């Protein structure tokens, strides 16, 4: 008895799907292009506690009252560094490190939700994008972990045991899925510098740069995860990454209104 493949007719029928699959005309559809995807940094903001965080949340609430649709993603911070450090000593695979890395941004997201609850803050699981239209229409401020859900399936990067996709990647990939043009990162620096300004006082501020120019500089350190800079030029929607200083009053609100404050990395 022969056992033929029973194939459904389609543009990709019989394909190994290992090639680019460009036989189909692809005209991308944006899912929720008006949403602002905003990261609140772990080490840079949350680990500073009330003094840094409360004024930032005030500006986010003010923006929400202006009708700006905001989704907040939380970073990890020093507790993530602590578990990464111990896990590295134990030589556990990157996929295990990435799984450990899910828990701290989740804690931080829950803290943010408790603070924002009275203004409509609602905790959202990573797979709950499908409920966003409801939350936003109700005037809520959804808060979720910035960590992508790759976990044990996170790939190892050459020369490192740390998961390459962390909360910056989660913010960019969320914005890209939702079809938002710009992702906003709230940190404790004015954005991008020629070197780490906390360690090198001679570092100078970069107002705008393309991903290609940034990569070509070959900096030993960059303000956002390297995968985000790598992905940016091939994004369909999210073509700009804006980094602002949450410690400077007015920056967050200005950025949420669409102003070019801080640094902008362009595709």
């Amino acid at each position, binding site marked *: 008895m022969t056992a033929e493949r029973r194939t459904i007719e389609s543009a990709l029928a019989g394909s190994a799907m290992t090639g680019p699959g460009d036989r189909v005309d692809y005209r991308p*559809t944006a899912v929720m292009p008006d949403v602002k995807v905003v990261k609140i940094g772990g080490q840079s903001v949350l680990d500073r*506690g009330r003094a840094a965080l409360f004024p930032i949340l005030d500006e986010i609430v003010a923006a929400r009252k202006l009708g700006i649709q905001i989704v907040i993603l939380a970073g990890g911070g*020093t507790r993530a560094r602590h578990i990464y*450090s111990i896990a590295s000593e134990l*030589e556990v695979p990157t996929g295990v490190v990435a799984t450990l890395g899910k828990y701290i941004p989740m804690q931080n997201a829950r803290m943010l939700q408790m603070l924002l609850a009275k203004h409509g803050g609602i905790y959202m699981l990573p797979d709950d994008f499908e409920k966003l239209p409801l939350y936003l229409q109700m005037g809520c401020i959804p808060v979720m972990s910035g960590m992508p859900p790759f976990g044990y*399936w996170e790939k*190892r990067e050459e*020369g490192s045991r*740390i998961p390459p996709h962390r909360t910056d990647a989660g913010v960019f990939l969320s914005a890209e899925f939702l079809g938002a043009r710009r992702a906003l990162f709230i940190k404790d620096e004015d954005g991008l510098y020629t070197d780490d300004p906390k360690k090198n006082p001679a570092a100078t501020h970069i107002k705008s740069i393309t991903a290609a120019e940034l990569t070509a500089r070959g900096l030993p350190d960059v303000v956002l995860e390297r995968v985000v800079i790598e992905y940016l030029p091939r994004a369909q929607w999210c073509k700009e990454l804006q980094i602002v200083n949450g410690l400077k009053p007015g920056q967050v609100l200005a950025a949420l209104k669409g102003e070019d404050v801080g640094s902008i990395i362009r595709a």
Partner: protein
Amino acid sequence: MAEIISGDGRTHINSRLMRESLQNRGVLSQTESDRDLRVFPDVTLVSIGGQSIFDRGKAAILPLVEELVQIKRDKSLKMVIGVGGGTRVRHTISIALDLGLPVGGMAQLVGAMEELNAILLNTLLAPHGSMPMQRDHFWDLPLYFDAGITPIAISVPPYHFWEPPPEAGHLPMHGSDFGLFQLAEVLGMKQVIYVKDEDGLYDKDPKKHPDARRFGKITLAELLPQLPDDNILDRELFHAWSHAKNLTRITIVNGLSPGQLTRALHGDDVGTVIVKEPA
């Protein structure tokens, strides 16, 4: 005892990565070593093709299930099974492409099609001892093995809405072959066996080219420069494997030829054997 450190406006826990930028290459390299912990080094992961086996229906599926039942008699062989989705995945993505859905949307959708094959396989194998394994419930595996139960794993990796933009074209890069590879890699398994409908990996598609040449036993380093564009495993699998530390052996066998899977599980060189030598 963990030490809490402040003074720069932030509160830190003392650790080697404290205050550090995790983008700094110098910092990252401190986390590296020449090995990864191996959790289940005596387990083989068996991946059964969707298009190559399941889409052929009963005539291909039942003999393979019978072979798995025979294999299960040898309690020393520990295996986890995963399945591909086949033609329904291709149909899903074709429609999604036409609708212009984002790549993360496609990645979120396709897992359901693989799951159908996993349910079918489990329905056939359950009387002989099998169970679907929840996404990442790896820590149940020792129980499964002790009880003689073969777990059927979810093969599509949970990249979902966060599937990165592909290097070329518009399709998700992380499919079921990659997902099962990564599952075996992160758990430090012995080998992965991909059960397809060809006697191994060829330099071009043997269904279209009668002169296609099969790779026998080959190292990953030898294979990478001559990897065919159109091949039966996800391209991303080879890329990820080249940076990985654990997995040293991938075998591709023909599930339409009875006995090939059994021999591969016993470690025989059958079909195409790709080995990775330590760097």
